C-alpha cells in the first residue's frame, strides 16, 4: 500500500481552488465576478423522492387519463389574469446580459408551448414583446428602460425586490457588454461598468410597496397581475409581507438562482436553498389562508420535470427556469469546445457570462458571436425542452394518482437525507420522522 507523502496531501479547507482564488485576489485586487448560479453542493430536490402508487393508491393511465397542467396566475386583483398551458415559465433575464437573438429565442420557445417569458434589468425589447405571447415586465430598482407604454404592453408586472443569486444586491453589467444599443436603452455612457442600486429609489419596506403597487395598478387600469419577486432570505416573512402589500403572485428565487454577473462571494454565501425556501413560502401562504389565492412561483436551480413536480408538490403553483432555459437554447455547447478551451474553460464549465465573450452567442453583445444563435432553431429547442419537462411532470403526477399537477402534495414525498427532510418538511423515507418538526 502506497501512502501519500506528507507534502502531497491536500488540505480539505485550503484546497487547490481556495489557494488559487487567494492568489488571484492577491494579484488583481478584484473580487471575482461571474455568471451562473451557485456551484457548490447543496441540498436540492434530488434529495426528495415521490412515493408513487401501488395497492393503497392508484396511478392514472398515461395519455388516456387526463393530467392537466394549466395554471392561472394573478386571480387576486387583476382584471386579466394570466393563463398558462404549463406551470413552467421563463424567468427574468435582461437584454444586455443576453443578446437580442437569445431573448427572441426564449420568446419563441415559450410561446410555442403556451407559457411566459420575463424581461430583465434593461427593459423590454421589441423583439421580445413581438415573439413572446405572454410577457412579464420586470420593475427593478434600476428602472432601466422603464416607461408607461411598455408597462401597458406587458401581460404582467414583476416588482423585483431581489433575486436568489444575490438577495440584497443590485444588478451589474460590465462595460464590455454596454454596447450602443444597451447603453441607449439604459441611458448610460457606452462601455462603463453598470452598477444598479440594491433598493428601489422611491419606496422601501412593505408598507410603501403597497402604495407603489397601487400606483402600478392605477397606471395600468388594474388589468395586469402584479408579481413580487424576492431572493430567498426570509421567505416566510417575505411572502407574508408581499401578500400584505397587495401582490397577486409571489416569486421566490432560491440561492441556486442564476445570474449574469454577480460577485462569487454573494452567489455562494447568501440566500437559502430553493428546497428550504419553498416550504417557508407555502407555510406563510397557508397561515394567512392565501395558498392558491395568491399564486407562488418558485425558481432557483429548476432542471428537470422532477424538480418542477416536487416544487409543485410542496405547494408552488408554478416554477420558473433561467439557467436551464439558456442551456436548452445552446449555452455550454460542446460544438464550440475549441473556443471554450481558448478562454481557459470547457463546455459545461463556462461561467464567465459577465465578460460577453460567450462562444454560444447567448450572454454576449458581440455581433460576431450572437449571430451564431439562430432564434428560430434555438426557440424550437426551448419548446422541446419545455415539452419534456411537462411530460416528466405529468408522468410523476399520474404515478401518484393526480389528474391535475396541482393536486400533488407534500405527503406524496419522502426525503433521503436529514437536511432535505428538515428543509422540505417531509419525513425521511421509511420513517415518520421530520427533523425539527416531530419526534422519531
Amino acid at each position, binding site marked *: 500500500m502506497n501512502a501519500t507523502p506528507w507534502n502531497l496531501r491536500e488540505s480539505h479547507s485550503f484546497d487547490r481552488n481556495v489557494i488559487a482564488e487567494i492568489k488571484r485576489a492577491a494579484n488583481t485586487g478584484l473580487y471575482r465576478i461571474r455568471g451562473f448560479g451557485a456551484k457548490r453542493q447543496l441540498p436540492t430536490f434530488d434529495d426528495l423522492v415521490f412515493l408513487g402508487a401501488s395497492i393503497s393508491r392508484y396511478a392514472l393511465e398515461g395519455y388516456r387519463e387526463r393530467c392537466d397542467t394549466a395554471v392561472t396566475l394573478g386571480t387576486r386583483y387583476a382584471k386579466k389574469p394570466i393563463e398558462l398551458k404549463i406551470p413552467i415559465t421563463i424567468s427574468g433575464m435582461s437584454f444586455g446580459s443576453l443578446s437580442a437573438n437569445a431573448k427572441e429565442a426564449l420568446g419563441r420557445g415559450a410561446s410555442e408551448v403556451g407559457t411566459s417569458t420575463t424581461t430583465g434589468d434593461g427593459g423590454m425589447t421589441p423583439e421580445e414583446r413581438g415573439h413572446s405571447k405572454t410577457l412579464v415586465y420586470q420593475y427593478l430598482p434600476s428602472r432601466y428602460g422603464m416607461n408607461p407604454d411598455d408597462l401597458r404592453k406587458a401581460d404582467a408586472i414583476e416588482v423585483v425586490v431581489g433575486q436568489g443569486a444575490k438577495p440584497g444586491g443590485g444588478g451589474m453589467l460590465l462595460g464590455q457588454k454596454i454596447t450602443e444599443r444597451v447603453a441607449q436603452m439604459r441611458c448610460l455612457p457606452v462601455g462603463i461598468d453598470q452598477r444598479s442600486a440594491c*433598493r428601489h429609489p422611491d419606496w422601501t419596506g*412593505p*408598507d*410603501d410597496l*403597497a402604495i407603489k403597487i397601487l400606483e402600478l395598478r392605477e397606471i395600468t387600469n388594474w388589468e395586469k397581475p402584479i408579481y413580487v419577486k424576492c431572493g430567498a432570505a426570509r421567505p416566510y*416573512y417575505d411572502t407574508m409581507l408581499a401578500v400584505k402589500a397587495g401582490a397577486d403572485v409571489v416569486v421566490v428565487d432560491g440561492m441556486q438562482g442564476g445570474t449574469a454577473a454577480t460577485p462569487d462571494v454573494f452567489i455562494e454565501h447568501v440566500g437559502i436553498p430553493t428546497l428550504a425556501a419553498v416550504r417557508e413560502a407555502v407555510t406563510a401562504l397557508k397561515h394567512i389562508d392565501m395558498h392558491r389565492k395568491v399564486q407562488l412561483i418558485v425558481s432557483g436551480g429548476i432542471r428537470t420535470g422532477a424538480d418542477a413536480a416536487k416544487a409543485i408538490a410542496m405547494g408552488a403553483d408554478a416554477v420558473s427556469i433561467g439557467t436551464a432555459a439558456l442551456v436548452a437554447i445552446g449555452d455550454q455547447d460542446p460544438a464550440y469546445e475549441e473556443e471554450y478551451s481558448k478562454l481557459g474553460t470547457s463546455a459545461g464549465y463556462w461561467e464567465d457570462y459577465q465578460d460577453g465573450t460567450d462562444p454560444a452567442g447567448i450572454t454576449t453583445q458581440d455581433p460576431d458571436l450572437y449571430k451564431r444563435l439562430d432564434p428560430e432553431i434555438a426557440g424550437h429547442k426551448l419548446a422541446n425542452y419545455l415539452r419534456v419537462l411537462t411530460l416528466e411532470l405529468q408522468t410523476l403526477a399520474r404515478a401518484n394518482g393526480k389528474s391535475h399537477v396541482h393536486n400533488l402534495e407534500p405527503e406524496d414525498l419522502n426525503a433521503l437525507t436529514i437536511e432535505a427532510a428538515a428543509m422540505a418538511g417531509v419525513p425521511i423515507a421509511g420513517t415518520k420522522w421530520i427533523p425539527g418538526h416531530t419526534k422519531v
Partner: protein
Amino acid sequence: MCGIVGLYLKGTRLRPELGRLFTPMLVEMTDRGPDSAGFAIYHEPAERGFIKITAFHPDPAFEWEALCDHIRVEFNATVRDTHNGSHAVITSDAEPAGTVALIEGFESRLQIMSSGELIEIYKETGLPQDVADQFGLSGMQGSHVVGHTRMATESAVTTAGSHPFSTGLDLCLVHNGSLSNHNGIREHLRTHKGMHFKTENDTEVAAAYISDRLSDGRSLHGALEDCLEDLDGFYTFVAGTKDGFAVLRDPIACKPAVLAETDDYVAFASEYRAFVDLPNIAHAKVWEPEPETVYSWGEQA
C-alpha cells in the same frame, strides 16, 4: 411595516376632543398596518403618590379584583381599578417596581402595558378601527397621544408584539422600519442588564435600549441620540413622554415622517393623509423632520 400617528395639544381647549381628533388619524393608517394597533394616551393624572399601571389579560373572565386584593395585602396599599376591554388601569400608591413585579408574577398571561402618572397604553390585534372601538378611543380626552398601526415584519402578530412599547414611567416608543442588529443588543441587555423580553420584536429591543440609557441618567434627548450610535437599520421613532413627544429618523431616512403644526397642536404621521380632518389643517405648517435629528415638544424631553 407600519404607520405612526401622534397628536400633541398645545393648550387645554381641545383636550376633551383628543380621542375624537385622533381616531381618524389612526384609522387612516390601516393600509400601512392592518395586523394590530395601539396607542399611548396621556390623561387623568393619578393623585400624588399614586401610579397608574395599565395591564392586559386575554381572558374576559379574568378576576382583576383578586389581583387588586393581592396588591392591597402585599403592600398595604390603596388600590382602585377601571376596566376597558381586555385592559385594566390599576391605580395604587404601592411602590411601582414592586407592584409591576407582583402583577407580572401573579398570572402568566397578564402583561403590563404601561406605568406612570398619566400614561395608559392600549393595544390589541385586529384592524385599527376595531381596536379604537374596543377601547372607546374616540371618547377619550387628554393632553397628547401616540399611536401605531402594525404590519408585522419578522415577528408574530400578537398583542405583546404590538406597539407602543413602554420604556419607563410615562414613556413609550413606536417605530416604523426594520432594525438589523437588534438581536445582539437584546442579548447584551438580557445578559448584562437583567432586562426581560416578551417578544422577538425589534422595537421591543429599541424600547429597552432607550430605557436602559435613561436609567443610566441620560435624558430622553440624549438616549435618542445614542440610538444613532448603537442601533443599525431603518427607523422612524416617536417616543411619548409625560408632557410631550420626541421624533427621530435614522441617517438614511427612507421611512416616511411628516409633521403638522398650528397654534393648537403638533401632529405627527407617516403619511400626510392622516392629518386631513384636523382643525385648521389647511393653514398648518407642514414639514418633514430631517434625518439624524431629535425633535421634541413638551418640557421633559
